[in-house]
């Protein structure tokens, strides 16, 4: 019985986690007729896609108790490498996409190695990577954007709509579809697989895991690499949307992604977190940004209100959890 109760409680909790999001959506809908319309909703989802993918990737690292500050500039570097392969190398589309994702995984592996083997605190290791990758993007491109004009179909990766071609009333952009697929796969990995289990275990008590005979270094490196690969997908998405790899972009995106993760209830101390929460966190952020813009709030006030609502949303979440325990 108590088990059942607990499970019902957990389900309720999951529903309630949407509370802040729903309050925001309802609020904005009442405040502006332009907000709750299909094209604007699609805009919001589209705006979530890149940040959402980055946030899903960094969720993995954060659950291990680490952090990844390099995701913003890594995203850009992956886009650049995809551009190099596609535009300069003239390779076919799938190879370019693979190059972008592989670049992400490789850089993630390097960060992971610095953290696991060289025992450099994640903050520093990924801060260093952030700067290195930022510079490399500029160096590789000669500070000029790489355009994907000659790569047929590159923009449809994010901007096309597979679903829309079947159900015209629901033109969900592919970028959003990709976000949902990535999120679903990673949620499955976290919940059902050995990798996922060790992700939580490392964040909960790394030494205990090591003393259980688990090769913690190897797993940690794998997790950072996986996160990097996901960031690579983010790089493909953003460059597909901009039809170009913009080498100067990226700095600051890491903070936004980490914010989404933390708003979604994942603890920076490691050991706990959910992909669903991260998605909600990312959605809260884009609903907020879009809603305030649609309401034509002055930009400086947008910043203030965003800050305040983030605090309030997390506070409400705290209260809810405390009530649940």
């Amino acid at each position, binding site marked *: 019985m108590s088990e059942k109760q607990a499970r019902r409680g957990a389900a309720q909790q999951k529903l309630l986690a949407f509370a802040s999001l729903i309050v925001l959506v309802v609020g904005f809908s009442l405040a502006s007729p332009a907000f709750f319309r299909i094209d604007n909703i699609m805009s919001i989802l589209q705006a979530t896609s890149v940040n959402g993918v980055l946030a899903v990737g960094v969720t993995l690292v954060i659950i291990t108790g680490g952090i990844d500050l390099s995701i913003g500039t890594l995203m850009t570097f992956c886009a650049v490498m995809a551009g190099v392969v596609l535009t300069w190398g003239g390779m076919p589309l799938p190879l370019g996409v693979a190059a972008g994702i592989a670049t992400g995984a490789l850089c993630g592996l390097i960060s992971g190695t610095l953290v696991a083997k060289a025992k450099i605190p994640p903050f520093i290791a990924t801060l260093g990577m952030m700067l290195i990758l930022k510079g490399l993007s500029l160096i590789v491109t000669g500070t000029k954007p790489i355009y994907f004009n000659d790569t047929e179909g590159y923009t449809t990766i994010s901007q096309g709509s597979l679903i829309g071609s079947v159900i015209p009333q629901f033109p969900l952009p592919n970028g959003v579809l990709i976000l949902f697929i990535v999120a679903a796969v990673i949620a499955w990995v976290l919940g059902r*697989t050995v990798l996922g289990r060790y992700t939580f275990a490392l964040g909960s008590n790394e030494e205990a895991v090591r003393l259980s*005979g*688990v090769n913690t270094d190897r797993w940690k490196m794998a997790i950072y690499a996986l996160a990097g690969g996901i960031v690579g997908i983010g790089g493909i998405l953003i460059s597909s949307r901009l039809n170009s790899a913009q080498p100067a972009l990226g700095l600051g995106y890491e903070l936004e992604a980490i914010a989404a993760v933390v708003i979604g209830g994942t603890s920076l101390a490691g*050991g706990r977190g959910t992909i669903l929460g991260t998605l909600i966190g990312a959605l809260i952020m884009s609903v907020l940004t879009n809603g305030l813009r649609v309401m034509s709030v002055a930009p400086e006030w947008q910043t203030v209100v965003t800050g305040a609502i983030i605090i309030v949303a997390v506070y409400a979440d705290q209260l809810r959890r405390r009530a649940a325990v």
Partner: protein
Amino acid sequence: MTDLVRMQGIQKRFPGVHALKSVDFDLRRAEVHALMGENGAGKSTLMKILSGVYQPDEGQILIDGAAATLPNPAAAQALGIGIIHQELALMPDLSVAQNIWIGREPRLSFGRIDEARQNADTAALFHAMNIRMDPRAPVGGLTIARQQMVEIAKALSHRSRVLIMDEPTAALNDAEIAELFTIIRKLRDEGVGIIYISHKMDEIRQISDRVTVMRDGAYVGTVEAAETPISRIIQMMVGRELAEAAATIPDLAGAQTALEVRDLTRGTELRKISFQLKKGEILGFAGLMGAGRTELARAIFGAEPADSGEIRINDRPVTIRSPADAVQAGIGYLSEDRKHYGLALGMDVRANIAMASLPRYADRMGRIDESRLGRIARDYIDTLSIRTPGDRQEVRLLSGGNQQKVVIAKWLLRDCDILIFDEPTRGIDVGAKAEIYRLLGELAAAGKAIIVISSELPEVLRLSHRIAVMCEGRLTGILPGGASQEDIMELATRRETLAAE
């Protein structure tokens, strides 16, 4: 004369757990009152209520006959109630003295702390306790046993009228326990009321005046210690009689050597240690605190690999540079410090039990067979009688002893050929202890090679087929099973400096 403390009808529920069911308890001035019960019976919870950590759902607390509310630890302290928590609550980055005086630092002007006085006070405290410890040493670097001494010193420094000790001796060995008892008796003679929780039955006889027993969160009864035989108390605790079986030492002459250690050395902590362990054998390791037994186990297990020396398994040399290597080679190690080295406290019982064996229960894609793991976890919960609302309960919410059982289950499931148990029964109740002894016997009979490190001599004697004794990082001798306590103590105190003379 009114009681010092009287708790009446105390109720406490946690989600899924009815931890205390209308419990009564009273404490008189100048008495040592033992609180007994199995793991998870609710002892710690009751004491946390008395010390202001938890609030009771129902019930009343009277201090000196007057109703008291204890909304926080500070309120309890103000009423003269001090507590040594079962789970150490220390700040590892602070020094010993800083830990002891936290919140009560002797101050100079401008909020400055009188560090010199604080250290001197601490030194005086240790002197009175008859132990040697540097007040300036960082607590994080101390062994569990020394940390426990710090907790005790901290509680004593409060000069409380009511002193709660929740398993203060779990990590101590006989010499230190004797010192502690001297201190307790002195305090009692000064009129302090002491609540004493322990799973070591022999201590109850030595120290307590009255005994209260709890079972399943309910009050069972209170008896006079001097007039009640231990077997009766055990019966009150577990609800049945326990048969006390002595170790039978098997003939292992023909058995194969499972593990051989040759000249294992690391720094000054381990010096040229060599021994053999046969299949089916239980080798006990005795020694005083800091003798280096844990260090030896960690070296064999690769947690902190040795500088030199050889480890052979089944007569073949193996290289062990990490715990992963060791587990691969078939060695399991149950650490003495479950909280830091044994458990992922935020994860559930099932995940912790599976921690060392996960790949075995996953398919090629790495997908975990949860339903099978769930069955296995529930099996262990039954066999080891782990008190938990289910296998999905977070381990941090379990009582200390039940946490220990989870760690044991983890290594049982891993099914290693060579098992090293470092203080396996720390914090475990009598019933479960007997269960674990039986289990170790069975494992040995099934051909496992087992090392048991224990600071409780009776336990070493009860379990071991042979007894290895260490002192200051050296193996000073190996005695046959059933050796006398005097022989062990002689080896355990054979210091190199003396031997050289």
